[in-house]
């Protein structure tokens, strides 16, 4: 198990390993000594927890290296959080990407079906030409939507930061 643990530690980024690997190994040795007296089931649960913890932790650390210091292990919980109304529309962005993927897959499937069909009529062009004609406008349309959404969100965010909405509230109260 110790060998597996050492191998899993290698999944972490080098800087993290240099800082914490010895400590983590020492703690794991303590845990191993502790669970040696326990039943087989408890030992298995502990081992699985450690493996999943290491894999999850390594993914979190790589994510942090990739996305920045605020990602990775969260300090803040999700419960009872008052959310700011001006946030980037993550859900919409994910949905749009999914739709784009769906369109691309559908076009690919259509192309495959078209290629498999016998072309008895020599005057008709194969369908894959339609693919090349259809995909760029769809991608362009999505890019335009993204850009428009981003510009709109930036304007709203800038207005929010400037405090214009507070002036509007003040003038409403004065009336």
């Amino acid at each position, binding site marked *: 198990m110790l060998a597996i643990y050492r191998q899993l530690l290698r999944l972490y980024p080098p800087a993290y390993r240099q800082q914490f690997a010895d*400590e983590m190994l*020492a703690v794991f040795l303590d845990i191993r000594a502790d669970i040696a007296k326990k039943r087989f089931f408890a030992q298995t649960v502990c081992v699985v927890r450690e493996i*999943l*913890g290491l894999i*999850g932790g390594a993914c979190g650390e790589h994510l942090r290296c990739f996305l920045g210091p605020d990602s990775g292990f969260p300090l803040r919980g999700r419960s009872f959080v008052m959310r700011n109304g001006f946030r980037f529309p993550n859900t919409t962005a994910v949905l749009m990407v999914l739709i784009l993927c769906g369109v691309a897959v559908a076009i690919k499937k259509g192309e495959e079906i078209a290629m498999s069909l016998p072309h008895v009529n020599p005057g008709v062009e194969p369908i894959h030409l339609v693919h090349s004609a259809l995909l760029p406008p769809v991608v362009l349309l999505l890019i335009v939507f993204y850009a428009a959404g981003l510009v709109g969100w930036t304007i709203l965010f800038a207005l929010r930061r400037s405090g214009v909405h507070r002036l509007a509230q003040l003038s409403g109260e004065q009336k």
Partner: protein
Amino acid sequence: MALYDMSRTAMTSDLPLTEPVLLILLSLAGQPQHGYSILKDVERMSNGRVVLSTGTLYGAIRRLLDDDWIERFDEEDASRGRQAYRLTQQGRRNLQLEIDRMKHITRLASLRVALKER
């Protein structure tokens, strides 16, 4: 009279804390501890409900060190791999804010439930 000074929460954007982080900070609130002691203390405080893996524990420790909520504490008899940690002033202040926030919520909940039962 306000039950809770909401403006104080503006001091940190990291509240409310996740349960593992809260328990780790509580574990360090009394005295400096090293990794294994923190794990056992968290398990004991939560009556065995929260059992951290080393991966989760050191993910939290790394983040808390980066955010200057905890710091390394050099013990005289520390062996290799047994690094102790303790709360910083900022960590203690944030822990107190979280405790105040939870007190406010429990007090409010008790009042509301009592009103409903009448």
